[in-house]
């Protein structure tokens, strides 16, 4: 939930209230707002439209991402052996390797050591890679410190808490802290710093399509959830709508003698305005109040956004195929969430934010079973949705102002458990946007033979070569976090990178 409104009230009441502060005040009186010293000011807006948004697309469940980014040259042989051979539904149903010929090859310039290719379902994303709008990050994972195979095998490595556990690894991918059960996410911490630069701070700058999450939870700012409705049918035309929801028969502007709405509105305001001693009641009342306030503001603001002509999967007009049934497209759920992000971006002028974050949770990747078929279907959904997403941003001219990155609990074991794979560690990810130095694979893609220098346990677990901190740091800098504040946002960044020095990979146009 978001708390900016109550905090704003607090500031208004407790500080010297900026109303009418004059030049004299600032020259002869050494008054400083206590809160102001904690916030980081954004650089003065150079352009009229200084806006940036960071989108986290979280693949919860742990994607088998060594089939997302795959060796496409000579190294394919070792990959195929480790994965139990190339999958064939009849002759080798337990094999988890993709056929070399099926891969969407990346150019040799993408990754110097050897050839790589994308999963065959990702045709749209492959095209964006070719256009330089998409970059990949190889073998990323949670790390307490740089870890070698030898350290892992002789148990001298400091390992993340709850390594291989869904809940713990999801949390650590959102906090960037693998050494404790932290409840503050790195986007939330960044937002706490950057929110001061937002012109209108009444609406939360952390918008979530995936409900409450740790990633967007800061000390003062919480995620604010909005909803996306897949495939709303209006006269046979399917489109994705959504936004904030309003409370029934509640209207702060309607005042009448005896109407139910007036009575209910007054009572709800009174009930929620009380001071509750019990902390659960207090939390409930605060959340309810924030939902009411944010919903009214956000609904109004959204109407200020430009209409989009780009069609998303699940919308009428997405496909020219007459057999296409919009509300049967399995991509419509994710598509509606991405469209909601774009609609918010379109309304940035009325929402009044210079910095925003968006969280989308796209789950169902815990493929202990049927990984080959299910992953192929799901990556097709991801690819098609992101193509529409990027096209819609281009339509708005905002493609350089929005960056999307992927996250997931962990990678999966390279070896098969029959027809699926199990929980592992490092995995492959991608970053999408006009501000990305695309067309490249960053980091170090491991040798996937079971004897490879990054591969541990008989199951084929990749020890990450890129820490999540290194993966996130350029995203944080791009969003506007200053080098001096990086350690607030990514508390363990100093283990892997010295803030202020040259960035680790050059993934982003900074």
């Amino acid at each position, binding site marked *: 939930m978001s*708390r900016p409104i109550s905090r704003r009230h607090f500031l208004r009441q407790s500080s010297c209230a900026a109303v*009418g502060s004059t030049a004299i005040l600032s020259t002869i009186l*050494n008054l400083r707002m206590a809160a102001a010293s904690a916030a980081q000011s954004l650089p003065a807006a150079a352009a009229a439209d200084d806006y940036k948004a960071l989108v986290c697309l979280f693949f919860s469940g742990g994607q088998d991402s060594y089939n997302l980014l795959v060796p496409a040259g000579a190294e394919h042989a070792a990959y195929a052996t480790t994965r139990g051979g190339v999958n064939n539904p009849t002759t080798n149903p337990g094999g988890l390797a993709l056929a070399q010929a099926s891969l969407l090859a990346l150019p040799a310039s993408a990754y110097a050591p050897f050839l790589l290719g994308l999963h065959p379902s990702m045709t749209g994303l492959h095209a964006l890679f070719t256009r330089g709008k998409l970059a990949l990050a190889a073998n990323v994972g949670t790390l307490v410190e740089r870890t070698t195979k030898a350290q892992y095998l002789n148990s001298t490595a400091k390992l993340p808490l709850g390594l291989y556990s869904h809940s713990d690894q999801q949390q650590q991918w959102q906090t960037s802290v693998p050494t404790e059960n932290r409840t503050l996410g790195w986007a939330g911490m960044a937002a706490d710093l950057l929110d001061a630069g937002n012109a209108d701070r009444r609406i939360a700058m952390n918008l979530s399509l995936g409900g409450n999450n740790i990633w967007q939870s800061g000390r003062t700012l919480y995620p604010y959830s909005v909803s996306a409705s897949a495939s709303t049918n209006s006269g046979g035309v399917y489109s994705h709508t959504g936004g904030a929801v309003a*409370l029934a028969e509640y209207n702060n502007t309607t005042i009448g003698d005896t109407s139910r709405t007036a009575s209910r509105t007054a009572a709800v305001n009174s009930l929620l305005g009380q001071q509750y001693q019990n902390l659960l009641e207090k939390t409930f009342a605060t959340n309810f109040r924030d*939902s009411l306030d944010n919903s009214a503001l956000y609904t109004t603001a959204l109407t200020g956004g430009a209409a989009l002509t780009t069609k998303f999967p699940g919308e009428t007009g997405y496909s020219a195929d007459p057999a296409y049934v919009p509300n049967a497209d399995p991509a419509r759920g994710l598509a509606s969430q991405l469209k909601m992000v774009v609609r918010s971006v379109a309304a940035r002028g009325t929402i009044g934010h210079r910095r925003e974050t968006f969280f989308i949770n796209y789950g169902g990747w815990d493929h202990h079973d049927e990984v080959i078929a299910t992953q192929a279907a799901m990556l097709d959904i991801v690819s098609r949705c992101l193509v529409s997403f990027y096209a819609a941003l281009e339509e708005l001219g905002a493609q350089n102002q929005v960056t999307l990155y992927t996250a997931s609990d962990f990678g999966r074991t390279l070896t098969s458990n029959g027809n699926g794979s199990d929980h592992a560690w490092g995995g492959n990810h991608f970053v999408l946007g006009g501000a990305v130095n695309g067309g490249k694979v960053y980091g170090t893609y491991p040798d996937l033979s079971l004897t490879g220098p990054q591969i541990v346990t008989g199951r084929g677990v990749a020890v990450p070569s890129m820490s999540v901190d290194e993966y996130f740091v350029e995203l944080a800098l791009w969003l506007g976090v200053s080098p001096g504040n990086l350690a607030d946002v990514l508390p363990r960044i100093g283990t892997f990178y010295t803030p202020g020095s040259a960035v680790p990979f050059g993934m982003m146009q900074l």
Partner: protein
Amino acid sequence: MHTAHPRAALQRCARLIVGVAALTLPQLHAIIDRDENQQSDLWQLRFDTGNLAAAADPDGDGYSNLGEALAGTNPLDARSAPGLKLENAAGGLLQLRWPSLLGKRYELFTTSALNTAWASAGVYAGSDEDQLAPFSPAGLPAGFFRVAIADVDTDGDGLADWEERQIGFDPKRANTDGYGSATITDATRVATALGLLNTVTVFAIDPTTAENWPDPGLVAVRRTGNLDPIVVNFTLGGTATAGSDYQGPATASVALGLGVDEVWLSFVPRTDALVEGTETIVVTVAKGNNYTAGVANSATLTVADSPAGSVSAKEASRFLAQATFGATEPEIARVQQLGIAGWITEQFARPPQYHLPLVVQWQNELAAAIPASNAGSTERGEVWWRRALQTDAVSDPLRQRVAHALSQILVISDRNGSLDGTPRGMAAYHDRLLERAFGNYRDLLGEVTLHPTMGLYLSHLRNQKADATRNRYPDENYAREIMQLFSIGLWELNADGSRKLDGAGQPLPTYTNDTIASFARVFTGLSYGQRFTSGTDQTLIPTTRFFDSYGVAWEPMRGFDAYHDLEAKALLRGAVLPARTASVPDTGAATMADVAAAVDNLFNHPNTGPFLCRQLIQRLVTSNPSPAYIGRVAAVFAANGAGVRGDLGAVVRAILLDTEARSFARLAAVDQGLQREPFLRYVALVRALGGPTADGRRRGFRGLDGEFLQRAYSAPSVFNFYLPAYQPLGPLTDAGLVGPEVQITNGVTGITAPNRFYYAAQATLFQLNSSYQTDTALDTKIDPAPWLDDATSQPEVMVARLDRLFAAGQLSARSLRHICRAVRRLPDPLGTADPAIRTTRATDRFRLALHLVLISPEFCVLK
């Protein structure tokens, strides 16, 4: 550098002037000044000044009455006055200090010489604390300072913010609480009120009390008319004796201050050994100054006698909110009759109301009537509701509630298509939880492990031993989750559920990835145990092959040694499973022996008791049980009194009878209770008020999950709808507490859930949402009829009854007041002679009150 010397600067800056007239800030509102003395009438009432001359200074503090009226200070008290001081401050700074009042505005002016123009040096909003304005004396010319004080009217309603605060109005709303029409502003209301006489009435807003549950009874003393401070006299009558039967107000009068229109008299019942039946307390308005008594001039409270072991209605309602899907008035009476421990014992003796037989029956009925209906998961969900709502003499509400709690620990979910496709399998799984709810956890853990639905969900059904030639290894899914979620958890625990720490203060993992790999080998070789004879002959026969077709998910899995890893395996805490020999013919005996030993190994781990008990307490009683509470319950898990480990019935009894669950004093603890799952709030509503349907069935419930992010057996993953350790940011996290259920309350569900309750209260609980069931007479609705008499003539009693039923009488006095006032704002049923309109109005009152109770924090949090 004498200029930096504080004393020198202090001397040069010592000329201070306070201006109390609106010298530079325009007066923003027309004050209410009925006596035309230029001073606010509300200010006069606030300080009880009467009509004073504007220029006089009766307290001799140097400020005229007019000046003090503008400053908001007391003209009859010299200590209350405007002022401006200069002081030393830290860091070599100086600071100005002046008294500041919320609702006023202060502008600081400075000048270097009095014959030059004053310049503004800042505007300050009032704060009710001294305003400090530090500044650096360096480079400051000798100067004078002046503060001008002015009123602010934020909402532009003609009443100054300071004035609105004195009478409890909202300075930011021109029509403070929506009373009156849009054109009647706060100022108009006040101006009108100041010319009226007061009428005083009394209402019992929380009328039932009991000797052994000292929740106070409340009587509201209300006045309409004026805003002036008055003292209302009353008399106390009735059969109860003040002092011995109850502790009432100290005096027979109560003050209503400026602008206050309601105060509450509180009556705390006292326990005595007398057998005296229910007694009464009658509060009657007596004569006094500046008011007359209205029609409702007396109110009656009851004090129930409480013999040892008896249970008050509120206490019983609270208990049932913990132990069942929600209180009903008959069940409250049953608890009062049997006592809490006796009620639990009776529940233990009731046989389970199983799900599977009813699912099969309804599936068959529907398939016969409408062959294309593809009956299945809808019927399964409907059976869940049927059992949850059952209130007849054989109903087993405690068992159903505990099984539901277990279903959120031993999670399977119909979001998995394979599971949604086997409604009988899922119903059979729930029947295991029902049967073992008061049984032994070892049995339950074993049955869950062998249940095909779990095998499908966590993919150990048809899990095979390793084939190194193909780099194929056993599936680790179930091995991991049975440890992490169903038995021991990630970290070594003490007996009270707290984590064990190593010398460096770090928690100790219970297992390693090697342990997982080892347990994964245990859970190989399991497949369906029973199958249909063929695709058309649904006669059940045992399976004979690992990959047999037509396996059914409602009979346990069996072992196939040919597919099982027979090598030796290390378990936890040093236990080792021996290498085994495959049975011939393959009965799966070796497989089953390994599985049983592994389940034993986990069941007997010291973590399992505290790990499980903590979560059961969280599901039933409180999100943040003390370590001692967990320890007491875990001790019962370890040994039930007869030396048996894992007795869930004894655990449930220990949880519900513990002092942290039962004591009245815990209600006041800031960390008591849990946020009720929105889904279970809805179940509680339907249980209490859902009328019967034409054919006894409940349809359309599937529409709920979008609004609540919740429905039975539809968790997004094996991690349930929320994590037991979820910490919502804010006061809970600040206090180091968790709030698991808060995880699914967000900006969307924070509104959609209340809206669902609105729809339920106004219209329909369950509406048909299916293409093959179209008879709207089968919708489930709330019947308002039993509530209409009270709604008509004594809405306070109706609200109190709703409070008792849903919130266990825990609605605060303020919440009761807000709800009662909202209800009384609606058109009065007695204001019309037309019986139809009267019923409509009474129904409206009931529906509004119900909705407000259902969205109140006191109902939504179970304390």
